[in-house]
């Protein structure tokens, strides 16, 4: 669906993208993560065709020049939290109607779909207003509906959840998961909120200073960069001997013990089994590594 090979892009003096290569298949949800100025938006702009790479090869949905390919543009939608697509001076519903004509949609079907989307994104009361009268969250919901109206095969979401309430946000993310399954679409997602990325994406591309420093599944990033789990056990009685277990660290607490271990080397159940044999365990607290902490660690190590 999307192929990038050795893409380089310099903006001014900055090498924003430096030999970026990857392949995204249909039906993949990909999160693009990076610190500020890592090149996330530039990468999306290059994929959308509004920025030409200095070198390298790019093909999006069979087209090597999306910018000039109106047919391809009808299959692609780019919703950005920073730059908007709705007509500023028209009512939101007029922008939707323009969209129906622009994307050559069947009017009857599009209107039914629009009804559903308006309901789901809770914007029914907003469509008669102009975008400048809306709050950021309201506006983003309208922008998302506009972006989804043409049922794009490639959906690019650049900080598109900005300003949304948590409840609406998760409802929308659920919808995106369903949408992908139903439409076999590709979703590219950038966000500073890694919880959103973790929820929505099954693959992560980690950017740093214009290069890809990781490209793989969420599970893989956790395995490779954050394999350490932490378990606190409140025990009564004599503690067992841990010498035979491949633990990373053991800390004796006043009322129990804390162990840090690599799930690749030893499973949580094995440790628990070992402890329960010797002593009574009253309480267990397990701390799994989260994506946010893992990525923070990766960058801290790297920078």
């Amino acid at each position, binding site marked *: 669906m999307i192929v990038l090979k050795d893409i380089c892009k310099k903006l001014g003096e900055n090498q924003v993208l430096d030999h970026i290569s990857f392949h995204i298949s249909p039906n993949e949800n990909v999160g693009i993560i990076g610190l500020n100025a890592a090149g996330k938006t530039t990468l999306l702009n290059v994929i959308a065709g509004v920025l*030409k790479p200095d070198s390298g090869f790019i093909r999006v949905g069979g087209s090597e020049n999306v910018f000039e390919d109106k047919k391809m*543009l009808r299959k692609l939608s780019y919703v*950005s939290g920073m730059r908007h697509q709705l007509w500023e001076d028209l009512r939101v519903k007029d922008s939707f109607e323009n969209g129906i004509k*622009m*994307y050559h949609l069947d009017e009857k079907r599009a209107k039914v779909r629009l009804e559903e989307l308006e309901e789901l994104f809770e914007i029914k009361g907003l469509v008669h207003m102009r975008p400048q009268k809306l709050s950021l969250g309201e506006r983003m919901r309208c922008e998302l509906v506009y972006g989804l109206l043409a049922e794009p095969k490639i959906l690019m979401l650049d900080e598109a959840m900005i300003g949304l309430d948590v409840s609406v946000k998760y409802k929308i993310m659920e919808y995106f998961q369903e949408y992908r399954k139903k439409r076999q679409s590709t979703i590219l997602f950038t966000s500073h909120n890694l919880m959103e990325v973790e929820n929505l994406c099954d693959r992560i591309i980690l950017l740093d200073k214009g290069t890809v420093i990781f490209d793989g599944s969420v599970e893989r990033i956790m395995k490779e960069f954050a394999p350490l789990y932490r378990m606190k056990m409140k025990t009564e009685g004599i503690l067992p001997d841990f010498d035979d277990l491949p633990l990373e660290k053991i800390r004796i607490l006043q009322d129990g013990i804390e162990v840090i271990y690599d799930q690749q080397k030893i499973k949580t159940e094995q440790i628990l089994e070992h402890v329960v044999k010797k002593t009574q365990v009253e309480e267990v607290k397990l701390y799994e590594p989260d994506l946010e902490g893992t990525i923070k660690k990766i960058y801290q190590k790297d920078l």
Partner: protein
Amino acid sequence: MRAYLEFAIKKFQNKMTYKLDFFMGIVNTTITIAVYLCIYKALYGNATEIDGITFQMVATNFVISLGLSSAFEYNEMFLQDRVKDGSIANEFLKPVNFIFRLLSENMGEGCFKILFHFLPATVFTLLYARLCPPKSWVHFLVMLVSVLLGYLILWLISLIIQTWSFWLFSVWGIITIKNVFVRILSGTMLPMWFMPEALKKVIAFTPFESIYFTPVQIYLGELSTMEILHKMGVQLIWIGILGCIAAFFWKKGVKKLVVQGG
């Protein structure tokens, strides 16, 4: 094509929702025409005609040229605003031709202003001034075509300057100067009949005469059939020339945007 028609209709409908703007537009056009007519009435004094031009012809010239010029106004900073805040890139993601979309929207707005600013202002003017009727219905219809061509000339001049926003920090000053030039050289301040011969010769080499004065001349029946064809041919040539210049700057500007990122 349906999309472009929809853009024009939406812009037209949108203008109808601004009620204050709607009434102010009529007042503004009526007052502007009235002021010019008063000045020229004073200049004419008791004279029935000057250099063969009657006051009625002058009044007709002002109603057409001033009325249309206010109807043809639109937001000429649109492109600059989009280039400045970077949203122009998102505009390009819409699967339509950006230039034709802009033209459709501006024409939708122009149609609204002709119907709801220009025509009511003309009716008000008729209450206190006598205007010349069209030479014939054919002349009137041909004039409408010529008005459309004049609009395209004016629109393309503006587009050329708007495309400079890809390189300049602000085109506001240039647009203001352009508007002054258009006002003076297209005969909306001083009718073309009264301009010095030397200036008329210079203006003949510019597109300004073709904007309002050609439609006025066709309406009044000042031109023979051959002259009408010639003048409208000139309008078409100017559209071709200005279209090529606009396309050149547009392509260069877009290239700059997609290569340098704005």
